[in-house]
């Protein structure tokens, strides 16, 4: 049975429990669900908010491309990816990946693969706004994120 991934790019928050329930309810074949939530972090207490810019249209298309790649590589029974844009404050959710499968290995691998690709290939850009009103500029891409994504190349 072909799995259709659910993909949403939205300004508002999401409800992880509801998304997980939608993937598992009324079925008896799901044995493993991995839900990854990425949050806005502020370690030194100076961040007021992230401003997440995205490329409308391409963001959804690119995420769908990764999702379909994940469905080819692993045996999944359900897949949901939600990525927010706009102003996001410390402690708030940014991204959700939920992978449902018979077996845990597929769910873990697919969720980790998707996060590595979202970090490096989905057209989103983060700008940091400081609490003193200054803008500390655009977050630079990290070489460790590129390395993480390149693990999956083949």
């Amino acid at each position, binding site marked *: 049975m072909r799995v259709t991934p659910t993909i949403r790019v939205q300004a508002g928050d999401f409800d992880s429990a509801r998304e997980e329930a939608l993937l598992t309810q009324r079925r008896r074949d799901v044995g493993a669900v991995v839900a990854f939530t*990425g949050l806005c972090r502020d370690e030194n207490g100076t961040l007021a908010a992230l401003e997440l810019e*995205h*490329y409308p249209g391409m963001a959804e298309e690119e995420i769908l491309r990764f999702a379909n790649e994940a469905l080819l590589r692993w045996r999944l029974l359900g897949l949901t990816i939600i990525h927010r844009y706009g102003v996001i404050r410390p402690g708030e959710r940014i991204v959700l990946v939920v992978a449902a499968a018979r077996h845990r290995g597929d769910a873990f691998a697919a969720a980790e693969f998707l996060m590595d690709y979202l*970090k490096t*290939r989905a*057209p*989103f850009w*983060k700008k940091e706004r400081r609490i003193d009103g200054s803008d500390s500029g655009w977050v630079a*891409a990290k070489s460790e994120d590129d390395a993480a994504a390149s693990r999956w190349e083949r």
Partner: protein
Amino acid sequence: MKAIYFAWVRERVGLSEEEITPPREVETVRQLVDWLAARGDGHAAAFANPKTIRAAIDKTHVAPDAPIANAREIAFFPPMTGG
């Protein structure tokens, strides 16, 4: 064709998007970057280091040597920092 800009490329150019009509000899993404850089100070600042610029044609990532002949929309942006 339409050129659209994101993140600090947009800020430096000073525009979100613009209609452009590059001459026929501008055939690849790399050549278009050089052509755009000559449009003014903002463009020059945005495209000063082409290595840091990524491009997409009609919402698909492309390499610098990709042909632009059939593009309707070409986007320029820094490396992505989503997730």
